[in-house]
């Protein structure tokens, strides 16, 4: 089996907590201590109030599909073996407009999708790092 050639994140002092948490199977975001709003991706300051003190908070990992796109042709050599893949923009339940870009995992190609469908976090190991990903949430009805 060939190695996964997909590119990996390079954690830095600002983002390390997020990737470390993923390795523990937890979705962790940072929240501004001044205005209590979440922010994704993590950055050096709060884009809402410019506060610079954050706390790292585990979130539920639940959300809905805000949008999705299907990549069937290679755009980057690292993804040639991963085609086709679905890019998901997920809106998390914690805060309106709080969105995270991930892939849909655990669904066979052709699974019907729609904006608004509930999804939940999953985790994918890629070499030395782990990435938060999302899968369709089980329907309760």
């Amino acid at each position, binding site marked *: 089996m060939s190695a996964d*050639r997909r590119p*990996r994140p390079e954690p830095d002092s600002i983002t390390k907590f997020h990737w470390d948490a993923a390795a523990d199977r937890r979705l962790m975001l940072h929240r501004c201590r001044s205005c209590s709003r979440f922010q994704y991706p993590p950055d050096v300051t709060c884009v809402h109030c410019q506060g610079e003190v954050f706390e790292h908070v585990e979130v539920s990992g639940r959300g809905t599909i*805000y949008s999705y796109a299907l990549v069937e042709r290679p755009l*980057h050599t*690292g993804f040639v073996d*991963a085609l086709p893949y679905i*890019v998901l923009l997920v809106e998390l339940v914690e805060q309106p407009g709080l969105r995270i*870009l991930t892939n849909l995992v655990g669904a066979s190609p052709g699974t019907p999708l729609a904006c608004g469908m509930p999804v939940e976090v999953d985790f994918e190991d890629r070499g030395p790092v782990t990435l938060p990903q999302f899968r369709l949430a089980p329907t309760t009805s």
Partner: protein
Amino acid sequence: MSSLSRSVAIVGVGYSELTRAGEPNPRSLTLAAAKAALQDAGLNGTDLDGIFEYKFGPESPGAQEVARLLGVPDLAAFADIFPTGPSGLASALVGVMAVASGACETVLVFRCLTRAAGYQGGAAEGPETVGGHEQFLTPYGSGLYVGGILVDVALKKRRWMAEYSRPEEDFGRIAVNARRWAVRNPRAVLRDELTMDDYLSSRTIVEPLRLLDCDYPISGAVATVITTAERAVDLRQRPVVVDAMTYATGKGADWTFDTDFLYGGTFDCAERLWRRSSVTLEDVDVAQLYDGFTPVTVSWLEALGVCGRGEFGDWVGDGTRIGPGGDFPLNTAGGQLAEGRLHGISFLNEAVLQLRGQCEDRQVPDAKVAVVTSGLYPQCSAMVLTAE
């Protein structure tokens, strides 16, 4: 009266040959467009004291090289502007600001690009690990190293259709319209009419984004000469005055995580433009709106106020109103979808030609006011132009 501190006019427009095949020399393309724009204005290189270029790849010559080629004695201001700006119109906007401020008297702005610039299909080599902002995009198969903004635009197209419960045909109206005009533009590279079926059956690049949603890569150059409205009166062409201009980013400026995911900065841009302008949307005779991707043009139309958010499909109907003879003539050269991808300056030049009455088969009768927009999402800009 212009909203600028010194009234500014567009006095020369020029193009190189636009081609789909071959590998023309970018320096030759740039020189051809620059000389054509100067000749159009009745000026020479010795009349210039500013040059501004919008640069996407390394292929096009810079401002200093062009100054040397044209025999410009000296430049009072110059810049090669990188593509974090609002597409190619950025060079013209800086040129306008340079003249308005008095930093320059007469400037040349240009954009040269070849088919090799920008995404053309196929997989690019990319880094194995990615830091900074891209660490949240690249590993998921989107962003700078993975097709640039293709995935983002596909996500925006999908979300627009879902949010407003609209069919894909709405975007097809923009693609079909481009060809209807291009048939009448000898410069355009794609001059065959399209049907909605052609649009709906074109292959997907990143689903739901189709090939015919995307602009068409060409090799070519486009140039514009800008000077004071006062000086313009004595030059060769009927002056076209910059009534208002602005940039915009929108809040949370970003391709993926922008606050207004569907429109980016287009609403901020349009609102400021109309606030500064001496005219209103009702006065507009012809619109040249960026069409790097069809969802971009829809975002501009709604932001400019032709209809409410998500109402483009109802507004445009069967597309007649944006075509030749319609009440809102849109992208009369065929835009980047059909004339070919030259980035924003080509929209400016076409607006100028329309306001001078020089567009022959595609001329909008008695056009006096034009609106031009360039760029998309976090990188927006717009101008209102009026014929004197």
